């Protein structure tokens, strides 16, 4: 029988960070890009076990799943702790019976966890958004720009962020964050 393929993660072997900012690649996660019309949000929320947030720049978490508002009919749903359940999220969405599009993007994105007192400053090295707690409170999320690449930013705690980025841009994003982390500690 043929051997089973093993997984090679992006960002393997990267290191960076400073006394004020911790940078680490996030554990593999399952992700779907979910597209739903307003009238079907409730059905998909029920099927996925997490209430899809309908206010811009907000996220919601339940049952190990986090749903990030990306656009008025678009969510990024992330399930942590399992490496290969992107298809399960697609299947779960399908059970709603409601009109939607769920596409597995588990391997398209990777994530960098940025934490520490200088986390926001490190991200502001390349991100033009106001990351003060008033403008970007815990739970806030947004697709935005980071230097020359696009990211999805989620604030997980007052001093912690999750930076979702397409895998081929992750070296660049990590490199910029490392620069930002160094500067944020000065």
């Amino acid at each position, binding site marked *: 029988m043929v051997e089973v393929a093993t997984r090679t993660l992006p960002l393997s072997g990267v290191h960076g960070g400073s006394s004020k900012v911790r940078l680490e690649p996030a554990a593999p996660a399952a992700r779907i890009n979910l597209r739903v019309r307003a009238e079907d949000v409730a059905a998909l929320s029920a099927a996925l076990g997490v209430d899809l947030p309908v206010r*811009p*720049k907000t996220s919601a978490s339940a049952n190990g799943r986090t749903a990030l508002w*990306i*656009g*008025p009919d*678009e969510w990024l749903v992330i399930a942590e702790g399992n490496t290969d359940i992107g298809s399960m999220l697609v299947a779960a969405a399908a059970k709603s019976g409601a009109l939607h599009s769920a596409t597995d993007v588990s391997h398209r994105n990777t994530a960098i966890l940025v934490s520490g007192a200088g986390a926001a400053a490190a991200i502001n090295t390349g991100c033009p*958004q106001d990351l003060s707690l008033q403008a970007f409170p815990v739970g806030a999320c*947004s*697709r935005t720009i980071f230097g020359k690449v*696009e990211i999805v930013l989620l604030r997980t705690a007052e001093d912690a962020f999750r930076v979702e980025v397409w895998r081929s841009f992750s070296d660049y994003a990590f490199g910029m964050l490392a620069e930002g982390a160094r500067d944020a500690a000065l």
Partner: protein
Amino acid sequence: MLLIHCPYCEEERSELEFRWAGEAHIARPENIAAISDEEFAEYFFLRNNEKGVTYERWRHIHGCGRFFNAARDTVSDKFLMTYKAGLPKQPIPAATKAEAIAEEKTVETWEQTEGDAR
């Protein structure tokens, strides 16, 4: 760098997240296969490129991804309003327009700086 109000994200974001997408309110003809060469040229090739208040499309490409419409004064670069795609051309409130015209006066233009030297 401009600050643009996205009608879907309901807040102002940096221009870096957006992409300009041409003049607004130019609908693709429903019977496009049947229109004349002149009508096609009018639809696809010709633009007014007006100086002053123009209606144009933007896309919040590195944000919510939505196309939307904006009324912008091309002289002062001031956004008079933005509104969702699909809405008809929105009238600009008189007060906003008056403010915009006043602001145009602060802009250095060729007419003001070199026009008299012709």
